[in-house]
């Protein structure tokens, strides 16, 4: 049914438009992600540090996963109305849980003997958190960031129905841009999501200490065991979302 490659022409002719919409898309996504980090991370760090609230920290992202982003945006239209704010709130609700959960799992999973050693060396609670727990939890934290970032970029496409702008504007406006525009927009957003994923994989590599890195390289396709056993040092997003796969 593809009778032409109209989307290529569309991308070339409307490069400026696509670029504008991409920028809008990124603005919505990064605002939401930033706020989600500011909300999710401190809670995850704190709960992980005091080793409490595991049930809440893990089930919050199971809960988040069950929320259809479309329904969430729709319900928020009823509450907040349409526009940027609505979309950003919806994206924060989607993005914060995975960040909270993986931060918690990372910090909570730091070997107790290490934190005890830190205490023994006279470090205070927050110093232990800052110098021992956070550095060791970084790979897990970045796994959560990757999940959330991709989720946000992906769901921001739906922002158009709430008047939030972004690439969804092109994808959902076939009347104005035609089928080739829709396809071009869809391709762009797909590439954007893959690029985001790639960026966070790279960041994940950078923050993973060399000693752990060599251990996870061993079996790239079987990450969940690392999660279950050594509390997530792997790069796999699926395994840490909610910590669910390995846990029964």
């Amino acid at each position, binding site marked *: 049914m593809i009778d032409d490659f109209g989307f290529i022409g569309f991308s070339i002719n409307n490069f400026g438009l696509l670029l504008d919409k991409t920028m809008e898309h990124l603005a919505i996504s990064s605002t939401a992600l930033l706020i989600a980090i500011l909300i999710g991370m401190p809670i995850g760090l704190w709960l992980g540090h005091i080793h409490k609230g595991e049930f809440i920290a893990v089930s919050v992202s199971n809960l988040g996963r069950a929320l259809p982003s479309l329904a969430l945006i729709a319900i928020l239209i009823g509450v907040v109305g349409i526009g940027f704010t609505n979309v950003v709130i919806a994206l924060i609700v989607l993005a914060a849980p995975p960040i909270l959960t993986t931060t918690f799992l990372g910090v909570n999973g730091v070997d107790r003997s290490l934190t005890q050693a830190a205490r023994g060396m006279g470090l205070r609670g927050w110093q232990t958190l800052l110098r021992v727990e956070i550095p060791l939890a970084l790979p897990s934290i970045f796994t959560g960031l990757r999940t959330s970032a991709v989720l946000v970029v*992906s769901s921001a496409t739906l922002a158009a129905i709430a008047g939030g702008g972004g690439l969804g504007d092109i994808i*959902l406006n076939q009347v104005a841009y035609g089928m080739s525009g829709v396809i071009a927009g869809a391709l762009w957003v797909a590439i954007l999501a893959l690029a985001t*994923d790639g960026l966070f994989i790279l960041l994940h590599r950078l923050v993973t200490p060399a000693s752990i890195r060599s251990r996870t390289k061993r079996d790239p396709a079987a990450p969940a065991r690392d999660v279950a056993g050594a509390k997530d040092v792997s790069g796999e997003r*699926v395994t840490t979302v909610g910590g*669910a*796969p390995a*846990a029964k």
Partner: protein
Amino acid sequence: MNIIIQAEPVIPDYGQAGECVVNNGAFCADWFVQQWPTIFWPALLEHIGLTLIAIVIGFILAFSAALVAHRYSVVAAPLNGLTTVLYTIPPLALFLLLVPFTGLTVLTAEIALVAYTLLILFSNTLTGLNGIPADVRRAAVGMGLTRYQILKRIELPMAVPAIIGGLRIASVLTVSTATIAAFIVDAGLGSPILKAIQSPFNTQFVAAGALAVLLAFAVDGLLVLLGKGLAPWASRRRIA
């Protein structure tokens, strides 16, 4: 071929409608009960259908792929990469990218929904199969079990908790993603949501959204029970 769902007048009848409907309250219970048989129940059934088909096909594909990857570990990484890419593409984009090939049909929706289940089902099944402790495997080999017998009697039963875990995540995700399928086919709980957004009529999309969330929890709960039935030993030792 028009992708945008036509705006239909959702608010039924201003003349006879109750106060809540006229004022467009957040949730009008009367209207919901009244419209249940015509709007919500059919949409819910369609949604369950969309989800069920996607999970069954996705599971068959992912399970077979995991068996292959378990036997020939060379293919594990490429398969993992492929399913990761599929998983990363935004749902709305994937649905629309398939439209030129398969049209605005349920088939298009199902292809995309299946594609989203693959990563989680594949990697969880493979993790489960590969996760057998080395001493257990050595004991099995020592008892003279063949490779096939090890798979059937030891690896598969021990992988059940991981497989069920994957099914839980995949089902919940599919219930959620299937709402987005309404952009291309007039089916499932996403359809009343999209129609009501145009008006906008609150009760309809609040109700449909809430139904989708409840459905996700119900499916999750059922799979937990299934997991307890199939692998009662797993609930005793909690991991992670």
